[in-house]
């Protein structure tokens, strides 16, 4: 039921690396480092401005993939990767979207487990990819049965 979505892409959405959101996020992960939140430190750094923590792209809107309806409960986050060309800069605008990279099933302890691999991208205003992230979501048999109804 997810295989048919492989290769599908979401609509592109513009996101701003917003100063207040970065501060709130840094605080939530217990990392209120001046490079993230203090303007003076940012100005004097090699980046000439503040940067965002590497897992900050969690907050971005990646648009929706037509027909892909993931339940908001019962999913297990299996793996997560981030790849960066450079750190994210506070104040910059990124165009974000996701692609269904793969879907496969494997026998596990809780029956037939489904593995959905979503790849997400953030591009700068020149269309250059700044970061890529891959998220592997595990969907248990019980949850899939509910989806089928």
């Amino acid at each position, binding site marked *: 039921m997810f295989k048919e979505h492989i290769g599908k892409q979401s609509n592109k959405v513009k996101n701003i690396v917003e100063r207040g959101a970065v501060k709130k996020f840094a*605080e939530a*992960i*217990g*990392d209120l480092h001046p490079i993230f939140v203090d303007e003076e430190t940012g100005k004097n750094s090699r980046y000439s401005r503040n940067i965002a*923590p590497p*897992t900050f792209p969690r907050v971005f809107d990646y648009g929706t993939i037509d027909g892909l309806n993931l339940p908001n409960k*019962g999913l297990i986050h299996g793996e997560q990767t981030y790849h960066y060309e450079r750190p994210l800069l506070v104040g910059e605008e990124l165009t974000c979207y996701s692609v269904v990279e793969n879907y496969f099933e494997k026998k596990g302890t809780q029956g037939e487990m489904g593995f959905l691999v979503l790849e997400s991208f953030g591009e700068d205003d020149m269309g250059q990819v700044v970061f890529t992230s891959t998220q592997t979501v595990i969907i248990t048999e019980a949850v899939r049965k509910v989806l089928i109804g």
Partner: protein
Amino acid sequence: MSRLAEWKIGESLKEIQLDPVDRITLIKYAGASGDYNPIHTIDEEAQKAGLPGIIAHGMWTMGNLAKLFTNFYEEGYIQDYTIRFKGMVFLNDVVTLQAELAEENENNLRFLVRAVNQNGNEVIKGTVTCQLYASSY
């Protein structure tokens, strides 16, 4: 604080032990990240999902683990960060963050990273690759 470039293979960064996980921390992460899955904040919802109690967001632990490298931002940046979620983090768990240098290729350092709970069990595990800036090595 010493520089990343001076680290030798097999050496570890100074580990960080987090405060015991409490509910307000997870509520804050839910708000900051936009992940409002109630198994992270509401007991009844966690129990309905078959859990003994609320669990931390895997991404909360992953976010925390990266702070081992925040002090080195002038020297390099995290180019790759890969994590496998291995175990659940419950309320009152005490999580310790660790990183050990595994590989060095001129301006590229690969660390094995993990977070363990108070019983020594890995909750997340993976790698961080730091790309050093040309002027730093």
